[in-house]
């Protein structure tokens, strides 16, 4: 929770990213408490290890700086903070109010073994599994296309004339 709040409070994105990593790590601990060992491991590896690293790379690549405080952000903070706090209270109240129907969760016993999860994944949830793999493929392709330089794309479509080719080479604009 502290990490979450810190994410909001910090003005430099690097700091926000680091506090998010803190959140991820603590969540992994929570998962272990709930007995989901596989999920905890995946959380650390994928989320904290891959996704956050990606975020950090992007932040450093783009030289993101501190955010300035403008009039708009002041307004947003003024409205947003109380509003969302009300929302938080509402959510909490609802959930606690229904706590009569939920009972306690035991701590400790690790029952989410990878073997069992694998059994589910490849048997009952095979279709979603395959679909998500296609989804990842698409995401990869999309990321490659989006992030590449426009001239590079154009050049894959267009075979330059010898004249153009010479010009491009001269301008240093070829690959």
């Amino acid at each position: 929770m502290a990490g979450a709040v810190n994410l909001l409070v910090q003005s430099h994105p690097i700091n926000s990213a680091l506090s998010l990593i803190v959140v991820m790590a603590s969540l992994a601990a929570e998962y272990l408490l709930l007995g989901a060992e596989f999920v905890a491991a995946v959380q650390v590896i994928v989320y904290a290890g891959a996704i956050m690293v990606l975020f950090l790379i992007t932040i450093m690549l783009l030289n993101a700086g501190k955010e300035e405080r403008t009039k708009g952000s002041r307004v947003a903070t003024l409205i947003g903070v109380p509003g969302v706090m009300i929302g938080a209270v509402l959510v909490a109240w609802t959930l606690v109010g229904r706590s009569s129907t939920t009972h306690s969760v035991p701590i400790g016993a690790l029952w989410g073994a990878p073997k069992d999860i694998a059994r589910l994944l490849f048997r009952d949830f095979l279709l979603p599994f395959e679909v998500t793999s296609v989804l990842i493929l698409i995401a990869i392709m999309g990321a490659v296309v989006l992030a590449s330089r426009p001239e590079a794309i154009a050049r894959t479509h267009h075979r330059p004339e010898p004249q153009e080719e010479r010009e491009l080479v001269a301008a240093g604009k070829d690959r």
Partner: protein
Amino acid sequence: MTLTSYLWVVPLLPLTGAALNGFFGRQLPRKAITAIALIFCGAAFVMALALAAGFSSASAPYSCDFKHWLRSGDFQVDFSFYLDQLSLVMLLVVTGVGFLIHIYSVGYMAEDDGYYRFMAYLNLFMFFMLTLVLAKNYLVMFIGWEGVGLASYLLIGFWFIKDSAAAAGKKAFIVNRIGDFGFLIALFLMIKHFGSLDFTHVFAAVRTLPTESAGAGLLTSIGLLLMVGAAGKSAQIPLYVWLPDAMEGPTPVSALIHAATMVTAGVYMVSRSSAIFERAPMAMMVVAIVGTLTALFAATIGIAQTDIKKVLAYSTVSQLGYMFMACGVGAFSAGIFHLMTHAFFKGLLFLAAGSVIHGIGGEQDMRKMGGLRAYMPVTFLTMSVATFTIAGFPPLAAYFSKDEILWKAYSSPNGSWVFWLIGVITAFITSFYMFRLWFLTFFGDYRGAEATQDAKHQSAAHATHDATDQHGHGHGPHESPWVMLGPLVMLAILSIVGGWVGIGGRFEHFLAPVFQSGAAELAHESAGEAAGQGTETLLMLISVTAAVLGFLLAWTLYLRRPQLPARIAAGLGALYDAVSHKYYIDELYAVLFVKPLIDGSTTILWHGVDQGVIDAAVNDSATAARHVSDNARHMQSGNLRSYAGWVAAGAAVVIAYMVWMGVPR
């Protein structure tokens, strides 16, 4: 008689002619148009003759039904045609006189550009008139009624480029419509109370009802409303104002529609409804009063008119008044008799007037005519026959019919000597103005000689003026071609002999089964005749004297001492002005009805409703849509965070709603 099962063919023949000429006439040569128009009209006439030949009173009436037109609960109306003595008479008159006028128009309209249109409209009119006359129920009659009004509008405004002609056509149609309103209400009453519009049913139902005493009742109402319709169609007070203006149309139109046939539709309708009127004495009285007053009123206006066609127009109104007077005193067959003779002599008068106008190059003002009997002998002869007829000289046609009316007005149980007296006075005035016309046109010196040049220039200016001047005649008045004179001669012969069918009451006997005033009336009649033979002879002499007096007066004023009329007119001053301006009735109507209607329409309906409500509703709703979208536009700011804000707000609303409603387990 199997021929009567083809009764429906009679109206359809001219309709076919109208369709052919109307749709294809533009491409057809003159001769083809003429042939089509004349063949179909003539065929209708021939069929009418054949029907007449095979007609026998014993097996009348014939009807020819096409089942299944309107069905609504118990009420039904079919396309049915009907031939009894009354419709046979009308049929012969309409087809006969119509055919003659078609022939005449061939010559009269020969050089007009809209020749095919004219012939098509004439045939169309014949179709509607025949539908009206041959109808077996009021609704089919109403089709014909409206249709002749339409044809009249088309033909009056034939030279529609002329503003006055177009306005006259509109006036005719609108005034007709006012009358039609009354007619329709009468039809509605009939439907409600008798459950049918068929003549046989209605009259049978009516005959079971008792005679209504003076005062309002169902039959009185129906009768009065029918009279309103008749007043509109047959130009009686107060709806006569369209007929003089209708002279804007070509002369054959005036002859056919406004003398011989259409305007007599009202008389026919009233006669057809005789069963209703006989049981509603109040309505009959109103009919008689209206007719008599109109006769007198129109005759007085006719004295002071200078346009030859206007004189004849007012004369028509006046003669129609005679017919209504006859119907109003219960002498329906006398009214129909006069209708028939009137068709002959009035048609002849108009056609001859057209011949005169045609011969002097389009001039219609009598003050510019004169001495034409030397130039147009045949026209002169035929017109003289007609003039003497209308004045009521024996043994010409109208003498018999007019005398019959006057006698019945005097002697009938519904009549009174007041009607007779006014009738005689009107006869005197009629004779006077007709001979005035006769003398002014044909005698004396030709006053138009020096104006021939002007007339030519004038006619050239009015490109669509009456008759034509492109004959290339530089010389003065001339006789018309034989295609125009032939019908004149025919009608003259009919004017002479046409009245002889009425001698000895034969005509009345013929029509008696229709009017079923039947045995009682005839017995009354013969009793009255026997007793009043002397009275009748006396009255007859009085009316002939009136006619002769009129002749003498006109002779004096317009031939012997032509300077007198002007002096008299100057002496009478304002009275003369009023008469010559038609008693300012048109102006009165304009102030009373037309102007308020137009103003009200402009202010309330146009500005108020159309612009203020309807246009405003449409425009304002468009403006409102624009304002709404102007304000909603701000949601699309392009700012990512505002979008996010909207999303969050929406999600919060949904979640709140779900929490509030309670998520079902």
